[in-house]
């Protein structure tokens, strides 16, 4: 065989290899896209049920537990924002408790986990559980009971909101608004005395005019609520005794049901409707 023929043969072999490379490259791209187009059935929640508990996972991270927490958190955000996974909330608590075990001081996962639980999964109990876990691991962080109080208040559970706001205001560094929210939740729970005392404390210790003004308005609201309740009870007793509604609030005093008529914080009389027996404060508290 001549040298030229050998070189030609070598060149053809290289060309054949290059062609084979291109063809197989194109082949894998085409086949990959064909395979990707065929949907695969999935077991509900299968992608996460096998993640072990955070306590055990911590050993498996070989000292990179903080990094593992970051990665699981990043993955969790993507997972919980994939709306096509209908049962994605099944293991919400499991996932966020894993992150909490891996990096207990990482605050964002507790907040986002609770946010997902309350807004997406519509599970207030779970949101509070995640935030409780956050507080348990970070007793110096007021944000967890603060958010828990906010979610409970939003759901109309004022007793729970009150408890959380109380916890918040006891943590050093908590914002002043926590005390105001506590007073508001207490008012909603109709503990008028405690609400009055708290708003009074806010009024007296206010560092700025705005806060004092807010407290003043709420004090008006609390007093009006207490007075309205007192007057309506007296009207009720009057009706029971005389089988009719009083013609005016003065009759409550003249018939001995009240020693005197209460007035609002501005010294104005309460507005009475003799047809319905309803009593209203003379001013709208928040417009005052």
């Amino acid at each position, binding site marked *: 065989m001549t040298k030229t023929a050998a070189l030609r043969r070598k060149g053809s*072999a*290289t060309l054949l*290899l290059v062609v*084979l*490379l291109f063809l*197989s*490259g194109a*082949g*894998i*791209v085409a*086949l*990959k*896209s*064909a*395979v*990707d187009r*065929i*949907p*695969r*059935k999935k*077991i509900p929640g*299968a992608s996460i049920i096998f993640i072990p508990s955070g306590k055990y996972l911590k050993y498996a991270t070989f000292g990179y537990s903080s990094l593992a927490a970051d990665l699981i958190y990043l993955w969790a955000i*993507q997972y919980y924002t*994939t709306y096509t996974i209908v049962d994605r909330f099944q293991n919400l608590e499991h996932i966020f408790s894993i992150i909490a075990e891996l990096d207990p001081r990482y605050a964002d996962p507790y907040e986002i986990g609770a946010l997902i639980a309350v807004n997406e999964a519509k599970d207030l109990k779970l949101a509070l559980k995640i935030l409780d876990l956050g507080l348990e691991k970070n007793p110096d962080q007021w944000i967890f009971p603060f958010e828990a109080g906010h979610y409970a208040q939003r759901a109309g559970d004022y007793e729970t909101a009150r408890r959380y706001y109380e916890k918040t205001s006891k943590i050093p560094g908590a914002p002043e608004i926590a005390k105001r929210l506590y007073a508001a939740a207490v008012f909603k729970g109709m503990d008028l005395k405690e609400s009055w005392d708290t708003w009074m404390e806010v009024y007296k210790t206010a560092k700025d005019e705005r806060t004092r003004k807010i407290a003043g308005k709420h004090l008006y609201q609390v007093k009006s609520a207490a007075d309205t309740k007192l007057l309506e009870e007296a009207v009720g007793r009057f009706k029971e005794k005389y089988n009719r509604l009083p013609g005016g609030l003065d009759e409550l005093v003249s018939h001995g049901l009240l020693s005197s008529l209460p007035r609002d914080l501005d010294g104005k009389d309460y507005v009475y409707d003799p047809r319905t027996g309803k009593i209203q404060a003379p001013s709208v508290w928040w417009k005052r």
Partner: protein
Amino acid sequence: MKIKTIALNTFKEAIRDRILYLLFFFAAIALAFSRLLAVLTVGDRVKIIKDVGLASISIFGVLMAILIGTGLVYKEIDKKTIYTLLSKPIQRWQFLLGKFFGLVLTLFIMTLAMGVIFLAIVLLHTGKLEGRLLLAILFIFLELALITAVAILFSCFSTPILSSIFALSFYLIGHLSWGLETFILKTRSGAARFGIRALSAILPDLENFNFKTEIVQGLAIDPRFYLFSALYGMVYTLLILSLAIMVFNKRDFI
């Protein structure tokens, strides 16, 4: 014929490797251990046996492919036996394909042996032979053939340790590349999305050979999926082997 001779010699060489028996021993222990693990569960014991069994075949098979495959070509170069071989009328591609088929044959025997143990354990528990489990094992074997090609590719230009690391990385990337789909969905259309899409098309997707969960859970699989996955595996193996031949052709042994 030359490829067959080299393949048979590679097979004889591979079955003399003590590491192969060590791995097979551990695989057999893992398969037997699945029976023990099943005792600890509450509920479906057979599921645990199937999960652990298939995972053991896959993991130990990959270890065999990588640990033996990465040393195949390197050993010939290191011991200088390659000079004797290439001085004979053997083309380099024939040598490489012979090595590949030799190791694939070894892995086939090993997978078969592990599969028999696994199926026997399942048979003892369920009293029946499940054909779909064989299908899962078949796709594990296809994956092993691809990993063997990758190990041989790296073995052509690198030391066994580095080749093992590279091949293992290929395996890990292959089983994690499905995550790129999430990036594609979350990225706005543009250059970045196109780049990720291109990367997703090029990178190996070894999840295409993973039917373990579906088969154990008894989920239906589209027959086209089997077909395209098998073709994908074969074409990817062909691509890697072509690359390996190209690299091996460029090497200067003189």
